[in-house]
């Protein structure tokens, strides 16, 4: 599904990603862990096409299509979804109108019919329930005045609506209390399927108790320096990042 090879990227003059390789097969959940400043969020942003990053080497192919040739909206239409660490508030932009515009843009690009109002409503209500979100959220401006937990749940709600092939969850656990974390994780787990892959970017092991990964990778100084199964996350929790990162440097 996703094949990243030798990826290098800069922010300004600074090289953040220094030759990153990652292969994700359909249905797999990969966790990317690492200390602050290791390049985790940069990796998520570069894949989704955010401005301000310069890819200097390497490639990222999603089902054989070069992501770096595409605008952010084209990547989304291809099935890429980024759940933001800091969801953006859009004052005056109605949540329901926003979702409808997004869903129809994606459906249209796949040659599918736009949703009619009734089936769209039905789909929304069903997905809202999974994330314990209130209907009233639909009438509010996107993320505007939402609590931290509501924002994160709204991200996963959007993911549920847009049904991506590959979802990247960027620090989705940050700022969530344990109840909110459980709801978000339930929402994510409900979306796991043999066709859908996920990359879960996180600093802490805590999230992985709820979203169990197939693989865990440790990112440090812009490279993946260790990969393993879910037990690697437990080891990191116990020992911290120092032993791997320093070991690599030695």
């Amino acid at each position, binding site marked *: 599904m996703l094949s990243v090879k030798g990826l290098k990227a800069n922010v300004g003059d600074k090289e953040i990603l220094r030759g990153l390789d990652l292969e994700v097969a359909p249905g797999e959940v990969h966790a990317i862990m690492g200390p602050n400043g290791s390049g985790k969020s940069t990796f998520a942003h570069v894949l989704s096409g955010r401005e301000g990053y310069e890819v200097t080497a390497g490639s990222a192919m999603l089902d054989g299509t070069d992501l770096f040739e595409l605008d952010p909206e084209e990547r989304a239409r291809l099935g890429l*979804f980024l759940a933001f660490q800091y969801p953006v508030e859009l004052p005056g932009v109605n949540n329901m109108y926003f979702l409808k515009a997004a869903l129809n*843009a994606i459906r249209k690009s796949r040659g599918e019919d736009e949703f009619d109002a009734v089936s769209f409503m039905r789909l929304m209500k069903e997905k809202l329930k999974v994330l314990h979100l209130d209907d009233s959220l639909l009438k509010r401006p996107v993320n505007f005045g939402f609590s931290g937990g509501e924002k994160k749940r709204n991200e996963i709600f959007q993911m549920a609506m847009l049904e991506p092939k590959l979802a990247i969850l960027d620090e989705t656990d940050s700022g969530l209390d344990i109840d909110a974390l459980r709801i978000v994780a339930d929402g994510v787990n409900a979306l796991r399927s043999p066709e859908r892959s996920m990359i879960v970017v996180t600093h802490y092991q805590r999230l992985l108790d709820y979203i169990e990964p197939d693989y865990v990778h440790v990112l440090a100084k812009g490279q993946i320096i260790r990969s393993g199964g879910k037990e690697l996350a437990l080891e990191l929790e116990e020992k911290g990042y120092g032993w791997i990162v320093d070991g690599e440097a030695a």
Partner: protein
Amino acid sequence: MSAAANSSRQQTEAAEAFAGWLQGLSGGAAIDAASSGTAQDWLAAERQQAAERVRAQAVPTGKSESWRYTGLRSLIDQGFVQVDEPLTALTPDDIEEVLVPGLDAHRAVLVNGRYSEALSDLGTLPRGVRVGSLQRMIESDPDALQGVLTRIAGEGSHLFASLNTAAMQDGLVLLLERGALLERPIEVIHLSVGMEEPRVAQPRHLISLGDGAQAQVIERYVSLGDALYCTNSVLELSLGRDALLKHARVQQESPNAFHITGLYLSQDANSHYAGVNIGLGGTWARTDLVTRFSGEHAECDLQGLYLAGDKQLIDYHMDVRHGLPNCTSRERFKGILYGKGRAVFDGLVYVARDAQKTDAAMSNRNLILSANAEVDTKPQLEIYADDVKCSHGTTVGQIEPEMLFYLRSRGISASLARRMLCLGFAGEIIEALGPEALRDYVTEQVGERLERAPLD
């Protein structure tokens, strides 16, 4: 000849050209009026004085503060002439294209500044409500107008209002007696149609609400085609004690239109005025909103949205004078500028020494979509009382890249994302327009303009 002398000579020439132009527009009509009838002696005298004020007035130049960003040269250069023939050839089918789908309202239509009985569809008006032609009323019942018409604008009104007083022929009159209630809105369509030569219309409108009367008025300035013309209109509004007026104004004229409106509002005690101004059309549009309070505890709420693109200048001037205690005023204007569009916002709130407990807030926020667009914004508070609550704020910004990326990351194209963010910015003003049919219509009009807007 030195450059300075040359420039001074040019300025003198421009001033002379302008003075001649003004007299051409005001002189004839005023003299005609002065020599006709006896019932309107008071009006004839007002017009004569207005014509004299026009002749005596210094010609505004770039140095005159209120015209600093809005040059008059392009207006004068068109050689507009006043045409006094009413245009009667239109049928209701012809105006179909300018109607708001699904808007339920009493409808009054004016064509090139003249009230049209044939196109108006007033339906059944409630008791105590009169709607009709100003010219008719001057002929048939001038007493009903005395002490109101021309008095609200007053002698201190600006040049174009004086010009209008001298030259006015017709316009709309809406009178609500004390306690009258207009539940259905009344829509006033100001339709302009191009003529062979560039013409100016100078309609005069009067809306007067007696004590406790309530109404909702929707004024729309529209054109058939891309005609070049000028409208110099004055609207006088009088609100009695406890009266309530909701007033939506949508200017969506031809891209070649020159538009001047002077709106003069007089509010008695406890009255409430809620005005929403939408400025979308024209190549040169100047609106002056002037408010005076004649009783305490009155509230004046002015909101606005303007959109200016290539070859467009949209200018809103506000002058709210708190001369009495305990009144409230609000100005909230938002602008979206694209292409080479230009806008001017100039808001003055004046609080006299005796106007204690005044509550005034003014804000102007602008979204600039291109490097070539410009807005000149000048909120001003002049406060001479010491126990007041007054504030003002101005912002000029661009679309946040973060917001744009968020929308695009969900599959939404960059151009639609931009449009959604602009409509989100404009939304709270459009919401204030009232009837849903009108809100939807204006949202669509704004969306269409943004869709055609160049990205830089």
